[in-house]
């Protein structure tokens, strides 16, 4: 099949900003100093003064604009095309979110202003907290964690604090083998050892395995629902019941909440604590790797342990921060969370309302299943179960022609697509994890499906073609091995090239 989605086009080269430097250029002016220049030695002490930072660049405003504009054109992005990274929920980031988050009276506020001067901000925090509690069916929310992994850490710490408070000190956390790497990493930082729970042949938590593993050494089960295969845990009610019956708690990684909004609520199927990724489900932009926001929602029993402070409102309608919470785990980030991101997410929820959120999840599910339907038979489906918002194929058929998932991923670039998540979840050898989200139109999905089919054909008939792809990107396949073997992690002036 011909490539119908992309055509190469001339694109500007650009060196490092440091390589653009030329003596005497400058890009910014300050207002004239309107007070006497300081006696520097007096103010700092001569031993504390550094010389000019020689390696800092000297460039003009024009150079800076050109430099970063050119760099930007080397990126694929949601605004340029489909970005079906599984587990990442690369949905459209509405422009109105950006606009309200930049309102000067919001973006310009200092976190340590007297509460009376930031009532609007406090109302924002309280409002979205309440909304997230309703969406998840939980009782209370902390907005402090700045990303999903931080939310996990916060949640697990709260579990630990609760259990300690109850006088028991269980030592382990159960985590399915399909989980995201942040789950075990967060559990470990929270002081737990991790026990991996093998998924059953359907890719789900096995009640039996859980039953066996669920000792009184186990503090919690940490699961993802729908799991990383996109499958809603069919036994979720029995799972949470069992864990609770044995004195454990259930943590849910809410990264996949985009499958559930308005359809089912974690709080209603026995979850004690979960985090959300506002930068996934709630449309805040990823920014090439953050910032995010990972609010944590809990049941009543965990509420006393939420990070400090929480926002409350008194009977006169006045909002305030409550720091008087002796059981709190403390703070997981300075101040109150990634406020700017939270504002965007609130704007998204308000734009959607209950109907919109339900539609978002429904169409996300439809889109994923449409892809599944169309690519069934073309790519191997290692777990052929009903899926919700994402679907995981494997390269099993293509592997016979010595084609790796990486080859498929790279070739997709020539077709104008960002590749799916590859090599995750770990329980699928050669995983191709596809999450289209509700933001893709039928036409874009069809183009993607065609591209995937075409690549499958190429894998069979012309596997060499794939091995050397991509062909149309401005750099060809990059050598990751060399990067790791001989790490060059920063620029150095020519004279002193080393690390």
């Amino acid at each position, binding site marked *: 099949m011909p490539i119908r989605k992309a055509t190469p086009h001339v694109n500007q080269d650009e060196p490092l900003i440091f390589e653009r430097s030329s003596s005497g250029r400058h890009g910014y002016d300050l207002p004239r100093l309107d007070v006497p220049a300081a006696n520097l030695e007096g103010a700092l002490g001569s*031993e504390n003064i550094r010389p000019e930072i020689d390696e*800092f660049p*000297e460039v003009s405003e024009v150079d800076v604009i050109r430099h970063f504009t050119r760099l930007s054109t080397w990126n694929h992005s949601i605004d340029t095309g489909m970005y079906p990274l599984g587990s990442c929920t690369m949905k459209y980031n509405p422009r109105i979110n950006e606009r309200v988050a930049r309102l000067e009276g919001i973006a310009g506020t200092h976190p340590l202003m007297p509460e009376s001067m930031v009532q609007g901000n406090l109302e924002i925090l309280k409002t979205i907290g309440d909304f997230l509690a309703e969406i998840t069916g939980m009782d209370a929310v902390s907005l402090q964690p700045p990303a999903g992994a931080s939310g996990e850490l916060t949640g697990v710490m709260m579990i630990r604090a609760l259990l300690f408070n109850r006088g028991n000190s269980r030592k382990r956390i159960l985590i399915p083998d399909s989980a995201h790497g942040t789950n075990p990493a967060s559990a470990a930082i929270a002081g737990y050892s991790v026990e991996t729970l093998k998924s059953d042949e359907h890719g789900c938590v096995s009640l039996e395995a859980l039953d066996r593993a669920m000792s009184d050494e186990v503090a919690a089960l940490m699961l993802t629902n729908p799991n990383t295969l996109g499958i809603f845990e069919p036994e979720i009610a029995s799972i949470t019941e069992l864990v609770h019956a044995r004195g454990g708690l259930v943590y849910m990684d809410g990264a996949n909440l985009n499958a559930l909004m308005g359809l089912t609520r974690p709080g209603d199927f026995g979850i004690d604590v979960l985090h959300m990724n506002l930068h996934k489900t709630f449309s805040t932009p990823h920014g090439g790797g953050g910032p995010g926001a990972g609010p944590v929602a809990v049941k009543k029993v965990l509420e006393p342990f939420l990070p400090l402070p929480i926002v409350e409102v008194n009977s006169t309608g006045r909002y305030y921060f409550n720091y008087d919470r002796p059981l709190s785990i403390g703070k*997981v980030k300075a101040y109150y969370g990634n406020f700017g991101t939270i504002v965007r997410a609130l704007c998204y929820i308000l734009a*959607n309302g209950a109907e919109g959120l339900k539609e978002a999840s429904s169409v996300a599910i439809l889109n994923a299943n449409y892809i599944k339907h169309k690519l069934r038979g073309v790519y191997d489906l290692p777990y052929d179960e009903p899926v919700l918002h994402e679907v995981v194929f494997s390269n099993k058929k293509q592997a016979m022609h010595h084609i790796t998932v990486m080859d498929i991923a790279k070739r997709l670039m020539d077709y104008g697509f960002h590749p799916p998540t590859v090599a995750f979840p770990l329980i699928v050898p050669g995983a191709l994890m596809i999450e289209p989200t509700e933001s893709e139109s039928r036409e874009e999905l069809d183009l993607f499906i065609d591209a995937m089919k075409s690549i499958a054909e190429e894998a069979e008939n012309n596997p060499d073609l794939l091995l050397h792809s991509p062909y149309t990107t401005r750099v060809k396949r*990059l050598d990751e091995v060399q990067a*790791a073997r001989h790490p060059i992690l*920063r620029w150095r002036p020519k004279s002193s090239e080393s690390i």
Partner: protein
Amino acid sequence: MRYIPNSAHDQRQMLIEMGLQSIEDLLEGIPQKVRLNRLLALPRPLSEPELLEMFKELEGKNARGLLSFLGAGVNQHFIPSVIESLVSRAEFLTSYTPYQAEISQGTLQAIFEFQTFMCQLTGMEVSNASMYDGSTALAESILMAARISQRNRFLLAETVHPEYRRVVNTYLHHQNLKVQPLGYQQDGTLDLKELDRCLAKDVGAVMIQSPNFLGNLESVEKVATLAHERGSLLIVNLAEALALGIVKSPGSAGADMVCGEAQSLGVPPSFGGPHVGFLASREKFVRNLPGRLVGQTVDSEGRRGFVLTLSTREQHIRREKATSNICTNQSLFALMATIYCSLLGKKGIREVALQNIAKTQYALRELRKLARLRVLFEGPRFNEFVLQLPQPLGSISKRFSNEGVVPGLDLERYFPALSNSLLVSVTETRSKADIDKLVQIFSTL
């Protein structure tokens, strides 16, 4: 919904192709008994004009047009317009973590530049691609030091930002790592005698902040010497990265790791976040660094390119043995700092630092003329200082708020011992007239 391309019509067509009746048919995976059988209780969907109106109303509930001398780790500096304009480029704003290098070279090269800038500023050899903020950067640096040193006691100066200390305590509490606070001496800097006393063989690292929370520069070199003598590492944190435009780099003063908050470099206050943390260290520690790293490499035709690298440190490969759980970080805001450093450049970064000092020294000079005020902790400083008043701050706050002035931070909140004291930040954004106004109000109290 306007954000969803597939209309009811499209959805029907797709369902037909799939041989299905309705989306309901796709939800069978969710057991009936846990299905939500009502609409969520949320306000009705709002149109864009309504959203704008609502947020402007919320904005209106915040005080506006204030003259503020708040700093305390969230610093008011000029933010060049090009930053906003460049980070709004969809290709930066709406892309994911650059896993697929060939179509993410923009983000990758920018992060490589960020890493370089952070090394240059701190005097370190390697830097990661960003941390959540200055507080978690500090906490992570201690976990890193624990891995390197295999020791479990850590000394944390009380002059480190109190919010950061709280975060450190939270992180370390669950790790069986002990954090011991170190007091400060009369000049507002770390009590070196206490440090000397506490620096036993089991101390993995000493953590200080410089400029510290009270505005004073710590004696980094002395602390480094002491720490190194006992086989301990020195971690220097910064809550005011702009100081590095003029203040000797922690690296050249002997720090082993430097971490902190780069909000000062082009990032708006935004009620405390998103900001951008950084963590830099000596090269020999690189395999213990948490977070993402971008490295230079070549493509199959020998052209330079950049990739995420050394990822065996990270959770998606090492899982519970990873150097950290951090995944999504603060990439876009690291880009803001990168643009800021590029634009200010060699001369500008120094000049802006010098202006901070000049404004602060001017304010100090004028305030010292007022007999009833006392400047605490005299000594080398960048752009902050502590002012002690004869009366409780509560009694005068009305006077300031009537004038639309926030004179600084009431320190009692964090340092109960420092009652009637204000932490005052005077940056390059404060004009002489602003400072004179502050002084004038103080003079009439």
